[in-house]
């Protein structure tokens, strides 16, 4: 008996000496975002949202006792980098990916993720080109087919009857579909849609010229589909021309940086927002406490996308069965948000019209 106890003691001590202090096997999920260039604002806040979700999960004990680790890759807003980033995340052991953040990179990523059987949840992807496809791509954002039509109805309801579209061709996957849906709906409502003006953000267009061209068309409103920075600069240029055009835009333009860079020119801008700050008050407070700034929709959508993955992984942390898990569960409650996938991993969620007043967002339809 004595010898047995002695051997156990010796083995235990040796194991204690030999074993390193390394972490246990963590569960990795990836974040594929645009951290370079003019589209990076969306990913920066979105990344914060994903970090917040992972931190909350780990604080609650992780997934089946395993710590969750968030790995990042930059898609530089181009397809090749996005694919490289996705493969990098896969090779680094990620069981799922949150991202990408713009539709331009979402198309090739969705195809590659399906090939790799790696679940990808797009937090802000609205392109209609991924709607109704049986693939490994999921999203927590409503396709622009729905949001653009809603925005068209809101703009029409504000009395606008002559609208012109201005959109960025570098993210054509999003902008064209969104524009066409808006255009069709506005026309259906009896409005007039002037021929759109397009540009490529990567060709360094003159926003002063674009502003002049829009103003010169004689429209009463302009629907812009471009990044936050470009929207801010275009808005500044319209403001300098003292234009009275109603500026309306999609969520893509509506990150937190818009108000900072657009200055007073942003006041009056109407846009459709997927985040209801009132409904998500507690979460917003958490985010502000954690990151010291007000979250935007990208942050919330990334937070939701991460938690959807974490909830499914909590049932079974295996990468191979994750897609089946997601489609089996379908419905996920994340904070105040209820996310319900259809059979193809798409969602249709409520969006709310807002207007900037004195640099702050205000609901277009205040509650009575």
């Amino acid at each position: 008996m004595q010898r047995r106890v002695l051997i156990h003691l010796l083995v235990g001590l040796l194991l204690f000496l030999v074993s390193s202090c390394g972490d246990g096997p963590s569960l990795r999920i990836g974040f594929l975002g645009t951290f370079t260039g003019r589209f990076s604002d969306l990913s920066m806040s979105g990344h914060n949202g994903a970090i917040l979700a992972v931190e909350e999960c780990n604080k609650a004990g992780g997934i089946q006792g395993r710590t969750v680790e968030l790995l990042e890759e930059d898609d530089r807003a181009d397809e090749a980098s996005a694919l490289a980033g996705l493969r990098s995340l896969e090779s680094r052991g990620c069981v799922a990916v949150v991202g990408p953040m713009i539709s331009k990179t979402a198309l090739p990523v969705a195809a590659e993720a399906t090939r790799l059987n790696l679940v990808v949840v797009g937090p802000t992807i609205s392109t209609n080109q991924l709607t109704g496809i049986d693939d490994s791509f999921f999203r927590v954002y409503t396709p622009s087919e729905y949001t653009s039509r809603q925005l068209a109805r809101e703009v029409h309801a504000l009395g606008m009857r002559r609208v012109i579209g201005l959109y960025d061709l570098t993210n054509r996957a999003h902008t064209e579909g969104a524009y066409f849906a808006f255009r069709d709906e506005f026309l259906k409502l009896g409005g007039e849609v002037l021929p759109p003006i397009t540009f490529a953000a990567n060709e360094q267009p003159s926003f002063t010229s674009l502003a002049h061209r829009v103003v010169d068309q004689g429209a009463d409103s302009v629907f812009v589909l471009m990044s936050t920075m470009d929207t801010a600069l275009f808005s500044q240029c319209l403001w300098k021309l003292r234009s009275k055009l109603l500026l309306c835009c999609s969520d893509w333009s509506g990150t937190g940086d818009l108000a900072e860079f657009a200055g007073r020119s942003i006041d009056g801008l109407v846009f459709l927002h997927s985040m209801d700050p009132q409904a998500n008050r507690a979460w917003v407070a958490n985010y502000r406490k954690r990151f010291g700034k007000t979250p935007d929709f990208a942050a919330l959508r990334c937070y939701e996308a991460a938690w959807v993955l974490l909830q499914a992984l909590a049932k079974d942390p295996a990468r191979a069965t994750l897609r089946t898990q997601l489609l089996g569960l379908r419905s996920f409650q994340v904070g105040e948000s209820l996310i319900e996938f259809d059979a193809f991993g798409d969602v249709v969620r409520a969006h709310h019209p807002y207007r900037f007043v004195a640099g702050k967002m205000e609901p277009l339809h205040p509650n009575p």
Partner: protein
Amino acid sequence: MSSGLPSIRRELLIRLLTTALVPLLIVGALSLALWSHYLRSNALEDGEHLALNVAAELQGRLLAAETTVVSLSQILERFEKEGAPAGASDSVLGFATQDSPLFETIYRVNAEGIVMGIGLPRLLAQRQEDYVGIDLSRLPIFQRVKFEGRALWSDSHLSLTTGQPSLTYCMPFRNGFLVASTTLNRVEGLTTPLDDVDEYKTLLLDSKGVVLLGTDGKRPSRILKLDHLELVKNALRGETGSGSFQWQDEACLGTCVALPQTGWLIIAFAKTDVVLRTLSWMIGLSVVGIVLGMALAVVLSLVVSNRIAQPLAVFSAKTREIAEGNYVIPFDAQPYSELDQMAGALRQMGLAIQEREQRQQAIEAELRQSQKMEAMGKLVGGIAHDFNNMLQGIRGFTELAKIEVGDGHAAQDSLDETLSACSRATELVQQLLIFSRKDKPSPTHLELNTFLPSSLKMLRRVVGEQITIEFTPSEKPAWILIDRVQIEQVFMNLSVNASDAMPKGGRLHFSLVHLEADDPARSRVELSVSDTGHGMRPEVLARIFDPFFTTKDVGKGTGLGLATVYGIMQQCGGSIRVESEPGKGTVFHLSFPRVAAPGDATVAPADATGTKPSVGAAEDVRTVLVAEDDAVLRQLINGVLKAEGYVPLLAENGLRAVELFELNADCISLVILDVVMPGRNGAEVAEHLWRRRPELPILFISGYFTDYLDPSLIPPEKGRILRKPYGQQQLVAVLREMLATGR
């Protein structure tokens, strides 16, 4: 073999291993822990030192950049004072940005935040119109500087002009501000990579914990936020943060300090495995040392346990040999003193057991001899008693017959021969009684050193001149308590035997020694009587004390000599043993209890009887009660008494004697009691009679003294003893004396 008890070998192995390894493991673990702590502390200290150095260097570079903006502000101010033409200021701003190694965009902003002029990089120079007139009043850095009224650096933000992550330096200028932005690409090199400094690296973070410059001194390819690290949190609180963290999937140890000017952070760190490299070596060395130590401890333990356990197994086997009777066992030299002592003890134990066994065998032999002699003594004693009674009868009636036939009768000679034969038979019986210890001796104090020489004179005549008698006295007086006649009998018998063993002469040696004992009461005097005769064979030696055993020719010996010696030695509390081998002579060792000297001199005992010759017979008719179980003797006494005019009352046993006494108590003048009788013996009858008549004279008659009667208990004033066989005249004389004196 398995008894369920732990094995010494295993116990030793376990305990030696434990003793060897536990301290090794404890000391090893403690050393590793202390060394790890020391290395970590050193690494963190070095990291802090480096971080502070880098911070100081960075502060200097930022100061240089700020100086550029300050210089620009001075130029612009001079232009305004001197009324420079419109556009001159914009040109200066353009030149400043295009020539500046750091700033890519410099806005001149009025107090409301409206851009009044801008210097852009060459690539965007044509787009100047897009930016002039725009409103920057809601930029956080603008609002902070406006609020604080002093120049500040921003955290990382996207550039409105390039869309790249940028830093902005904003300073108040006249009624507005100068806002100078630089992309993170341009600030690369603000920190110098420290790869060559003890493998340390640095990171530059903004005040939100976003990495501005990576370990290579360049902007990271993606946004990295490290504000969740404890060391960053501590640094953001204004303290020096230090600790472990993960960097690019590797464990690192680092220290984080804040730059007071900008709020940015510098982390200087190194990979943990590099910092603790020596610890890894130490762990490896320790493991190797422990394994070697274990192997060595196992080998040493086996060696030591074998060296201890193997001799124990040998001891066990040899102990079994001792148990089987092999007492003299050789033991090899032992490796340890304790084992050597144990071997010595086992050796001594074997010898001691052997000695005790031999002693016990001797005692058992003595006991057997003693029991044999005891049995013979009883047999001989009984025979002698009966012989005595018969001799008494023969003698008594022979004497009566001599009286009856008268003097001159032809039968007188025959009767005299009969009486002579009776006397010789009586002597023989006396010897038998001595051997059987039925005869009561009269012990007296004798000092052998003085007594022996006087006896030896007589012995010289007995053994003849061809035999030399020698005597070696002891160094100090040798007092013993013994019957003088008996000791002379002993000397005589031994000398006669020695003489017979040395027909052609030889040497007879008497020597005295003292055998001292711890208890003086147990000290003894040993008299050795040795001869140079032919010795005895063992079978003879075994029987020499048997009565009637003799090696002499028929008629030459009675076979009672040594039996008598044996009886005398037993009676005096001594012992006798003999050593003899054929051709080597014989030695008798006589051991006597030593006694203290009786005062100044040897006191010869008083006459046992103290009998005084009678001076005349009592004339009165007296009634004498006679108790004798032997009918012949009873009738003999009856005849003697009647012939002397006494009236005898005859009783055949003790009970009858008491009855007759009760019937004639008043008229009985004297009582003759045989000591040994069936029913009540003589002593018991006497006790009864003396209770009734304490003055009553009683004559005890006995062939020998037994436990029935102790002569010393007979009051001399009223009791006497007459030993069988006695003469008729002797009896009459005693009766007359007792009746005359009343005792």
